[in-house]
C-alpha cells in the first residue's frame, strides 16, 4: 500500500470535510505515539486505554473545528495532555501543570522528586535488557521531565512547541528535557558493564 504523501494537517482537514480514509491514515501515523505517551504516564494499561480512546474521540468530534494554525501533532498531544490532566485531577494527583516551574539552573527542584521504590535505579539495573531499562527509566522520571521527554520523543515536538503546549517558558522546557536526558544517560552509564 502506498504511503499517503499528504501532511498531517491536510489529512485532518480532509477528514473534517468528510473523508474517512484520511482519518485512517492519520490514525495509523499517530496511534502508537499517543498510546505510549499515555501509557507511560498512567498507573495501568486499562486507564491508558480509556484515556487513549477519549483522546481520539475528541479528535473525531473536533474535526470541523480543526484549523491548520499549528502542527497537527502539537494539537493532538495537547488534547492528550489535557485529558491526562483531567484524569490526574479526578485521581487527586497533582497535575504536571501545577508543578513548580523549573528554571535553567543546575538545582532543578524536580531532581529531588523521588521515584517509586520499585523504580529505583538499583532495581532497574537488574533488568538485563538495556532497552527495557531505558523505558523503565523514563517512567521513573519526574512528571515534568517525563512529559517533556515523551513529547520530544513520541510527538517529535521541538522545545518551543513543548514550551507552548505545556505553558512554560522556552528555557524551562529546555531544562526539563535536558535533565531527563541526563538522568537516563546516567542510568545507562551505571548499567554499562
Amino acid at each position, binding site marked *: 500500500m502506498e504511503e499517503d504523501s499528504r501532511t498531517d494537517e491536510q489529512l485532518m482537514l480532509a477528514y473534517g470535510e468528510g473523508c474517512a480514509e484520511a482519518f485512517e491514515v492519520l490514525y495509523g501515523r499517530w496511534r502508537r505515539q499517543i498510546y505510549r505517551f499515555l501509557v507511560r504516564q498512567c498507573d495501568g494499561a486499562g486507564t491508558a486505554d480509556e484515556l487513549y480512546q477519549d483522546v481520539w474521540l475528541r479528535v473525531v468530534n473536533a474535526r470541523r473545528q480543526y484549523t491548520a494554525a499549528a502542527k497537527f501533532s502539537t494539537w493532538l498531544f495537547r488534547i492528550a495532555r489535557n485529558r491526562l490532566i483531567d484524569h490526574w485531577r479526578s485521581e487527586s494527583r497533582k497535575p504536571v501543570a501545577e508543578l513548580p516551574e523549573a528554571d535553567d539552573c543546575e538545582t532543578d527542584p524536580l531532581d529531588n522528586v523521588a521515584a517509586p521504590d520499585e523504580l529505583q535505579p538499583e532495581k532497574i539495573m537488574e533488568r538485563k535488557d538495556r532497552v527495557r531499562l531505558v523505558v523503565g527509566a523514563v517512567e521513573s522520571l519526574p512528571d515534568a521531565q517525563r512529559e517533556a521527554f515523551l513529547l520530544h520523543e513520541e510527538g517529535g515536538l521541538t522545545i518551543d512547541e513543548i514550551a507552548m503546549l505545556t505553558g512554560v517558558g522556552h528555557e524551562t522546557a529546555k531544562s526539563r528535557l535536558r*535533565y531527563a536526558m541526563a538522568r537516563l544517560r546516567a542510568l545507562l552509564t551505571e548499567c554499562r558493564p
Partner: protein
Amino acid sequence: MTPPVHDHDVSKLYHEGSADEPPAALDRAILKAARENIAPAREARKPWWLRFALPLQLALSAVLVTMLALTVDRNPPEVPAMTERTKPQHSPVPAPHKAAPAGADPAAAESPAASPAPEGRARLPAPIESRPSSPKADRKAEATPAAIPVPGPSERASAEKAAAEDAAAPVGGQSLEAARTEPAAAGAAPAANRAAVARSPSAWLAAIERLAGTGEKTAARAELEAFRKVYPDYPLPERLEKLLAP
C-alpha cells in the same frame, strides 16, 4: 558541562523498547466512531435533483394557477353569465342606444378580437336587426303564431310595452277607454296606427268591435283597415265581420 538536550543513544534505546501499541479492539472502535461521525453528513446530502425541488414546485404551482385562470376566463361559470344576460332586461336604455357605446369604444372588452371572450359573449356580435332586443321579447316572439309577421324593433318594443300594460290592467279598464276614444278624437290614421301599435291584436279587435257596436261603423272600418296594415293575416272574429258587413 551542560547535558545535551538530545541524546541519540538514549533516544534509540527508548524507541527500540517502545513496542507498546493500542489493542486492536480499541483501534476498531475508534475507526468505527470516526466513520460514523461523518456518516450522518453523507446521509444528509440530498440527490442533485432534490436541490431543484423547491423551484420546480413553485414553477408548477404558477403554471397550474395560470392554466386555471385561463380556463375560468374562457369558460365562465353559468351564474355570472346569466347575470350578464339579464342585465339588459332591467336596463331602461333602448337596444340601439346600448349598441352605440360598444361600437364607439373599440377598446371595450366586448370585442371578441380584443380579448378571448366567453362563449356567452362570443354569440353576441349578431346583427342587431336580426336578434331580439331582449330575452323577454324573444320569448314573446316564440309565443306568437308563425303566420303573424314579426314587427320592427321599434314597433315590437311598443307592442311589448302595450302588451305589458294589457296584462297589468283589467279588461275594460282605462287603457281600453283610451283606445276607444283615441281614434275618435284624433280621427287620423297615423295616430290610429300609433295607438294600434301600442296594443295587442286581440285588444285592438275588441276595441274595434265595441266601436262598431256603438254604430260608428265608418270609424270602425277605418280602424280595422289600420289593423290590417299592421296585422294583415290576423284572423278576424266572425262577429266583427258581421258587424262591419255592408
